[in-house]
């Protein structure tokens, strides 16, 4: 057996796994109820079943119909961009907007093709000042500006 359409194959795998998984979780943990009084499992189980079925169709069909290859994954932008966002979220409280924006801009910029220290540094400073003025001062979002350890020393 040769996979003739890798794109469809992997999409099928993804949909099947998701559909079957959700349906199984729903059936195992929640009540099914009846058609008149649907329990919390009813709708997700039906949807999950349909999704799994369609995923299976895609999967089986990928052995018969010719299709495209899955294009190459570019892991550098993928990982760095995602890490940058997560880092921003988890470091915002301990490091304040100063530190979190620094992490976000620099890690994010590393994901691109060109990285110029000077350019990124200027960008960081501009973005930081802009965010403080617009989001913290203007829209009064309750974000800490400074790292929590230095709270007593810096005031804006």
């Amino acid at each position, binding site marked *: 057996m040769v996979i003739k359409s890798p794109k469809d194959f992997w999409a099928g795998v993804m949909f099947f796994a998701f*559909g079957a998984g959700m349906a199984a979780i729903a059936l195992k943990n929640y009540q099914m109820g009846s058609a008149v009084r649907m329990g919390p499992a009813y709708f997700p189980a039906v949807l999950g079943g349909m999704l799994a079925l369609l995923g299976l169709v895609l999967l089986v069909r990928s052995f018969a119909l010719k299709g495209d290859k899955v294009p190459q994954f570019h892991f550098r932008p993928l990982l760095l961009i995602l890490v940058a966002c997560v880092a921003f979220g988890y470091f915002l409280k301990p490091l304040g907007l100063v530190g979190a924006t620094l992490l976000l801009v620099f890690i994010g910029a590393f994901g691109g093709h060109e990285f110029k220290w000077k350019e990124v540094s200027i960008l960081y400073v501009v973005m930081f000042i802009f965010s403080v003025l617009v989001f913290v001062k203007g829209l009064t979002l309750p974000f800490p500006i400074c790292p929590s350890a230095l709270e007593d020393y810096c005031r804006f």
Partner: protein
Amino acid sequence: MEIISNLALGFGVALSPFNLLMCLIGVILGTLIGVLPGVGPVATIAMLLPITFNLNPIAALIMLAGIYYGAQYGGSTTAILVNLPGESSSVVTCLDGYQMARRGRAGPALATAALGSFFAGCVATLIVAMFAPPLAEVALKFGPSEYFSLMVLGLVAAVVLAHGSLIKAICMVLLGLMLGLVGTDVNSGVLRFAFGISELADGIGFVTVAMGMFGLAEIIANLEHKGAREVFTGKVKHLWPTRDDFKRIWAPILRGTFLGSALGILPGGGALLASFGAYTLEKKVSKNSAEFGKGAIEGVAAPEAANNAGAQTSFIPLLTLGIPSNAVMALMIGAMMIQGIAPGPQVMTERPQLFWGMIASMWLGNLMLVVLNLPLIGMWIKLLTVPYRILYPSILVFMCIGVFSLSNNPFDCLLMAAFGLLGYVCVKLECEPAPMILGFILGPLMEENLRRAMLLSRGDPLVFFQKPISASFLIVSIILLVIIALPNIRKRREEVFVEET
């Protein structure tokens, strides 16, 4: 005339200084993101949603609406000058607009796009004002079974209009519907698919999903290619079209406006479908069809009028039925819910100021856009020279701040990253995210209405076919699916989308 007094009320609201300012901010932002390739209205509106918490509902919706139709204006600028669609709905404008620019007629092309859009915007505003009230009255009679069938129709239409494989689009809808169910079940109070994560008890925020699937995935995909953007360098001169040009464009603009308005109302429709439909139609009926693709001014006029008309009339299903017809409208529903407004036919009677104020603001916004896009065109051209490597970290900052501020919780950033990954995988596997977002919004609504309908009918699923309105929605859905599955038409649909991309 009721419509005049209603519009007068609307203009009264829209002309208040603060609402005017919000409208201006909206259309400026819309033009900005329209001009910039790689930033779309979906990501922008998602980014700004958290900020609208602090605004009153009317101002918030006026601003967000301005972004969507403003983006239609800005998108054409990039299409004409850079041969890149600044906005997905201006894909077809590239074909003839860029050719016109190469021949030194960038000015008239830009002016045609702006004037066509303005005309279409005026007409579409009137259409919304005329058709929304009677539709809302019909919708007031809808029961749960009608709503359920209508949502089925909306989802089917989204599937039919999605690019690429039909099965994949259906899968994406189902995936979205299921993700929408995460959180506490309203009927039983059971926590579903939360996996012990307390943050998931309230469900997944759709802003998070939209930013991940559209914003992050788009950025990552854009970073794959080395951005070699060729900006049209020559100075734009002679903005005004000649008398001969005017003779050639008035009919295409009219046709584009009406076709666009009609296609915008359809569930699953909106600006993208409208511009494409109008271009195809124009190519068929125009006397100068041989010139299409080589710089025919009709090829700029018709789709630009149509995409603006479609962008505006796609508000009709949102305002009257509370059902979004595309991803942007899904976000608008979110914006309304943030403000504590339940979208649906009752909005018009219960909050006439919001309803008519928004409609009036569309006309005012269009007027501002003409001013923004014609005399100030030079400013937007300069903006095009900003490299993407500067642009995307700034976008990242806005997205992260926006998502974090939803509930002041780092978990939302993690969730956004997870959906960014899913979105990127979907790009690679050619699964379009737009149907998923629609499903995501409609998931809980559909379940709710399905439950109610089944309870009322004592478990008889035939109820959906016994009520005439509900039955007709379902029959149309089935017909659509059957038609699209016929080999002949499927082939043509694929050709259509290939041509588009």
